[in-house]
């Protein structure tokens, strides 16, 4: 892996390589370039989950002609790249990747390692390790009250959006003053979370970073997995498995819902 990166940088196949380096005991994202080629020996595969693809989109936005190398430490990294190619956030011709997967760093593996859950959360909320069908086993009222319990813990840190590898909009609906009023905690629920869930349709690659970043322990991954399930059922589109555009990137011919004025 290191020899390959060194060769790429020396031969100019990539101008910058985004990987991991151990800094003071923390394995954090690091940029490797030809100018500091000696550092390539410190390149490691990180166990901590950072979105190197999202970092690459920022580099590409600043320098559109730059050739970028990316370390893929988990299978979802490749899926995220597919989504970003499909939405024109990265140019596949400018990207080189090195795969270094480990089974224990796969997002599916995390689901199989349930964390201990308090009895209160068991009674009131929803567990991260649940599958969408486990939630559907509750009756409608239970389902609603359990989701509302989870959403009511939200401290509106925007961490789920900020960490998301496939969130790239310049203007975010979650910051639109007519949709989400400023200054209230929790934010308007369930709309705040459902707006984000709808926007995840055809984008979410089930990497689980949002859930890891959530200080309020909201089972966001479960919510977006349900959304993904609908996308597969209705549109037969498996997000991230190919660089094809999602069905939501095509504009419809006409508006089918009547416009409703927003009440103050």
């Amino acid at each position: 892996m290191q020899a390959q990166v060194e060769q790429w940088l020396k031969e100019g196949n990539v101008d910058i390589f985004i990987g991991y380096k151990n800094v003071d005991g923390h394995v954090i994202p690091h940029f490797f370039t030809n100018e500091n080629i000696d550092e390539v020996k410190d390149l490691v595969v990180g166990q901590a989950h950072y979105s190197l693809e999202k970092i690459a989109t920022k580099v590409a936005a600043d320098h559109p002609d730059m050739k970028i190398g990316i370390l893929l430490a988990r299978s979802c990294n490749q899926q995220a790249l597919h989504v970003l190619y499909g939405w024109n956030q990265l140019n596949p011709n400018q990207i080189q990747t090195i795969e270094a997967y480990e089974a224990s760093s796969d997002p599916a593996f995390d689901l199989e390692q349930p964390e201990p859950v308090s009895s209160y959360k068991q009674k009131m909320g929803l567990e991260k390790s649940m599958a969408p069908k486990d939630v559907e086993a509750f009756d409608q009222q239970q389902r609603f009250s359990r989701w509302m319990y989870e959403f009511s813990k939200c401290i509106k840190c925007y961490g789920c959006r900020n960490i998301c590898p496939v969130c790239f909009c310049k203007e975010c609906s979650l910051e639109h003053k007519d949709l989400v009023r400023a200054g209230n905690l929790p934010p308007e629920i369930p709309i705040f979370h459902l707006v984000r869930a709808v926007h995840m349709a055809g984008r979410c690659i089930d990497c689980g970073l949002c859930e890891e970043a959530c200080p309020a322990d909201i089972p966001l991954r479960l919510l977006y997995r349900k959304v993904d399930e609908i996308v597969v059922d209705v549109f037969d589109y498996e997000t991230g498995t190919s660089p094809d555009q999602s069905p939501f990137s095509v504009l419809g011919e006409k508006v089918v819902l009547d416009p409703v004025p927003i009440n103050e």
Partner: protein
Amino acid sequence: MDYKFVPSVCPYCGTGCGVLFEVIDGKLVGTLPNKTHPVNEGKLCIKGWNMHEFVNSFMRLKQPLVKTFGRFMKTEWDEAIKITADRFKEIIEKHGPDSIGVLVSAKITNEENYLAQKFARAVIGTNNVDHCARL
């Protein structure tokens, strides 16, 4: 072109969450939570997520201000410290050392907090020391 991530600690409250600052060409452009930090384990609050904004804010105070005739005037550190020391001496002479209180902060280090209480007790001569995290 110079991209790097710099590990640091959030200066807002006393929790001390680990963060990574995203630095491009010497300019701070983003903040990420440090995933392996034992305190926050990859999570941050909204203030922590937006730390790069206050560093680059045009409203940031970069030099001391002294209130003169009801208005804040920019001055140099030596001048500001001298004015403060003179006023402290006046107040202590007139009203006694207990007329002064020292508020320390979660945003400074343990060692700086120690120095501040030492200053309050040994230099000013008061036990009036409190801390914003002791709410």
